[in-house]
């Protein structure tokens, strides 16, 4: 009884266990798994990341204005859906040039609103991708 009274009294002066966010920033380790980032100039267009991705959040679709990268022979364009991504890092492990062409940052995904039409745009890309691989 005395012990608990003493504890109750000291608790009055102790700090709360919660963080005073956003005044106190939360800890963010360098190695935390966040968004996948891509460098177009270093990509060799082997499409290994696209095949390795479990939810299919990376797509290479044909484009009219291809980049000047000479490895891009099929005129493809890289697309990444941060809302579909599960941040497992399989794509980075499959990449022959990890940390140069494809790497995982510790950044959070942006917040999407209905006006962004994230899903609708992605469905169009998926349809394009399907059509391209059925014909090629």
């Amino acid at each position, binding site marked *: 009884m005395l012990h608990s009274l003493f504890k109750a009294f000291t608790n009055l002066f102790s700090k709360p266990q919660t963080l005073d966010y956003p005044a106190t920033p939360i800890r963010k380790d360098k*190695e*935390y798994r966040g968004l996948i980032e891509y460098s177009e100039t270093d990509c060799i267009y082997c499409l290994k990341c696209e095949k390795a991705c479990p939810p299919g959040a990376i797509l290479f679709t044909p484009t009219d204005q291809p980049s000047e990268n000479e490895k891009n022979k099929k005129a493809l364009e890289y697309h990444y859906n941060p809302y579909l991504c599960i941040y497992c890092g399989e794509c980075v492990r499959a990449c022959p040039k990890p940390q140069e062409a494809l790497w995982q940052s510790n950044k959070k995904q942006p917040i999407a609103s209905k006006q962004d039409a994230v899903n609708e745009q992605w469905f169009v890309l998926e349809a394009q991708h399907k059509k391209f691989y059925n014909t090629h």
Partner: protein
Amino acid sequence: MSKKTINIPLGSQHISLLEPVRFKFECENETIVGVDSDVGFVHRGVERACTTKFKYDTIGYVVARICGLCAITHSMSYTAGVEKLLEAQITQKAKYLRMLLLELDRIHSHMLCLSHTAESAGFEAMFMRIMGDREDVMQIQELLTGNRIQFDYVSIGGVNRDIDTLRAKEIALQLAKLQKKIYGYIEEFENNWSLSLKFKGVGGLSLEKAYMFNAIGPLARAAGLAIDVRNEIDYLPYKEIGFKMQTGSGGDIHARNTVRLNEILNSIEMCQNILEGLPEGEIFTKVKGKPQGETVVRYEAPRGELMYYIKGNKTAILERVRIKTPTFSCIPAFSDIFLNQSYADAPAILASFDPCLSCTAK
């Protein structure tokens, strides 16, 4: 007093339930005399998806999403099964790192269960305290894997991330802090008067009944039945890192809590042993081929034995993936425990089972 009984449902949505399950209680005054249960309110068709939509090497990530609390156990069991079919050799270091995360997962899952049993006994302060301390374990997991819940740590052939000395040191420090806190909980659960009113002698399961209803996990071990898959498997070297079987007696809520607390202590000890004696070597070996044949893998999830049956036919898509979860196996025992208990105790008893319905219905 008339002998007329009334039916009172608990669930599928109820203030004391964390996940949807329905128990229909037949009550005579305040006492429960008949139980009927129904699970499967959160069916998501995971088994079907595993055999139609996803290739065998990505299913480890799919099954991890069955349950948030034992995500690593699911992906670990599946991966162990596929490795068995592909006859892959895993390095000792990868095995140790897998066990480290599995035990960390057990610690935070048991802490969640303990906090909810305390809450259902009306002890909100204890609930807050345990949940606050559980955050430390979550941070350790985040340091180790890069994520709090969905670890995505195990892949076919090894693990995805190595651990450096700085991190290992920090994890060991945090674990030592946690160990002290757990001793504090043991004292509280043992001696607190209001907790003992709700827990001691309530919701008991005898050893014979535990045998009869095929109970597993902490539920069976609290009744004195020494059953633990970690003691029986050989693909993870549990005996090297100091696994000790924890059994209790009486099988009531108090015994279950004690078994869980002792298991947390044993898990912390095992984690410390792993960090001290981590072998040198690679964490990943490349595995080639497609799975052919069938296999059964058992693993001890925080709630009991988890079983995976995998059948492959040398293509990228598997023929069958069958998942048998611990809560599903324990339902006959659950129903029996409720009999002759007071209806008012039902939420506390249910919380002490630590049921995981998203696993069960998958």
